[in-house]
């Protein structure tokens, strides 16, 4: 589903990581661990196609990338003037999939916040919206970057449920230092 | 081989420069003796045009492959293009002073070429403002490709528009209509060959220096 060959990224003169090669198959949960600054978020962004690697290549076999690949990034901003429901509709229109707004917002616990603008959301609510948007297209490959960082215990349990569900129909790459989330993975990629 | 070609270049330089000073004065100019500025002005325009099209090709390669060395080559080509562009303006300004009585007369040809130089300035300002090398390479290549249409318009189309051409003092049909004398043609060919050879040499040296710099960055 994903094959990374010889990946490397540097900022300035120093390499964050180099010669990283690994693959992810369907049904797998790959946990990416590393200390702060080891490049977990950068790796997720490279694998998700949001950043060019300094060297190496990533091959994806997920069909249409808009729907086949979905990311839940730690530092993901939203449009301050759009409501939660409008974000779901915009994402669905751009990805050519069903919005499933009511179903997904209920699942992530944001059903009452559908009419709130992103500017009015707390950091925990934003984290839940990120999850809802990530699972909206039923992606084949789901990448999560520290999804439980701003979530309460209920939210962290939600992340684990999503990862287990996703593993039954695709694959997950989970960048995390949370021990509970780390136990979801069959393999661990250690950075740094 | 390298030393031989350098010696040959030096010889050509001496001969070309001497010939350009020794050709007989041109007819039909305010200061016939100083019309020989053309013998350096015209080759600079050719060298600039070569670098314009070569630079555009390198930009496409840079965007296609996303490899750092193509960006280095692009920068080298466009730096040379800018240098020759400035020389075109400088020799043109000198010609304007001796033939038309003013360093700058807002002649359409002069003005349109100044606008082209502003585009080059904007290109280098854009490169300076972007810290990430990959973003810088892509953004500057796209900007230059975007600027090719205005450049071609300003250099080749705008000065030849009938309502513009009739206002311009700049000679435009001299070469096309075969109005150059034989010794001027010879001198022009010599200086053109010299400048194009020099362009190639400078380009290669610049690329070599940039590649060395790049490989230094890779050292632990």
């Amino acid at each position, binding site marked *: 589903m994903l094959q990374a060959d010889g990946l490397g990224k540097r900022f300035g003169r120093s390499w964050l990581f180099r010669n990283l090669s690994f693959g992810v198959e369907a049904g797998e949960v790959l946990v990416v661990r590393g200390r702060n600054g080891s490049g977990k978020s950068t790796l997720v962004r490279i694998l998700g196609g*949001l950043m*060019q690697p300094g060297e190496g290549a990533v091959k994806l076999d997920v069909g249409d990338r808009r729907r086949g690949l979905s990311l839940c990034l730690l530092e993901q901003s939203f449009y301050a003037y759009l409501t939660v429901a409008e974000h779901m509709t915009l994402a669905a*229109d751009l990805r050519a999939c069903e919005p499933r707004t009511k179903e997904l917002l209920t699942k992530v616990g944001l059903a009452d916040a559908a009419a709130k603008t992103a500017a009015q959301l707390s950091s925990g609510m934003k984290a839940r919206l990120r999850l809802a948007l990530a699972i909206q297209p039923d992606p084949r490959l789901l990448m999560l970057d520290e999804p439980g960082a701003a979530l309460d215990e209920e939210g962290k349990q939600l992340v684990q449920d999503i990862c287990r569900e996703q593993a039954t129909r695709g694959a997950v790459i989970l960048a995390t230092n949370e021990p509970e989330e780390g136990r979801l993975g069959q393999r661990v990629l250690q950075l740094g | 081989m390298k030393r031989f070609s350098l010696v040959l270049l030096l010889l050509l330089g001496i001969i070309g420069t001497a010939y350009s000073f020794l050709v007989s004065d041109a007819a039909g100019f305010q200061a016939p003796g100083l019309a020989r500025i053309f013998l350096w002005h015209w080759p600079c325009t050719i060298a600039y045009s070569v670098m314009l099209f070569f630079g555009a090709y390198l930009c496409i390669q840079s965007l296609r492959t996303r490899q750092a060395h193509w960006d280095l080559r692009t920068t080298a080509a466009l730096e040379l293009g800018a240098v020759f562009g400035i020389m075109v303006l400088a020799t043109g300004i000198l010609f304007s002073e001796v033939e038309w009585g003013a360093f700058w007369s807002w002649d359409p040809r002069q003005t349109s070429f100044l606008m082209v130089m502003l585009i080059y300035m904007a*290109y280098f*300002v854009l490169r300076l403002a972007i810290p990430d090398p990959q973003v810088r390479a892509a*953004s500057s290549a*796209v900007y230059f490709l975007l*600027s090719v249409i*205005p450049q071609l318009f300003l250099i080749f189309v705008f000065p030849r528009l009938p309502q513009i051409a009739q206002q311009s003092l700049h000679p435009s049909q001299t070469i096309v209509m075969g109005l150059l004398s034989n010794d001027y043609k010879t001198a022009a060919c010599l200086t053109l060959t010299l400048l194009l050879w020099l362009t190639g040499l400078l380009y290669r040296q610049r690329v070599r220096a940039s590649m060395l710099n790049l490989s230094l960055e890779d050292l632990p």
Partner: protein
Amino acid sequence: MANASSNSDSSLKEILAVFRKEALGEARSQTGLMTAGLFGLVAVVSIAFAAYGMKLAGTLSAGLLWVALMFSASLTLPRAMLQEEETGTADLLRQWSRPHPVYWGKTLFNAALMTFEGVLLAILFVVFTEQTPASWPLLLCATVSGCISLAGAVTLCGVLVARAANRSALAAAIAAPLLLPLASLGVGAMRSAFGDGAIVQGWQLTGAMAGYATTLLAIGPYLYAAVWKT
């Protein structure tokens, strides 16, 4: 055949989604319209004040109006691209969409915004400077095709500076040299509209501006795609 038709339906839906998002943002914040409107009004009032009640010649009027349009475009249009990078929402578009529909959605919105501002500016200019255009249709068509060209060029410049230092000023600085050939066409068309040249020539130059706009819009998506995911 069915695949091609569903692909183009999907692209159209994406373009409309981006256009709608931009329009919603503008409707709820109104910063673009207000900034451009205020700038336009100040520019026109300044010109009328500086003219000291004298009647401006057609060529001068055309030049001043074009400068006002160019600066209005440079101030407001890059925002469409710059804001996405500044607020961090560019990644959403990169994840959810493709470069061509995003380019078309944003450029169409900018073109609509700039055309509205440009026509308003042209009308205000004529009123404040007490001009009588020789041909209103020519003036308005020249303004519209000029504004669409400005939108195409300046939007793309906004993309190029989105990850640079001193972005807003830089977008205007790098766009200006690209717009100089357009300025020669625009001023030529407008001076004819103000009575300082043949009307036929004015229409020819307006056609040339439309050609410039078409060329920019044709190559724009491909250039945008080249910087889409750097």
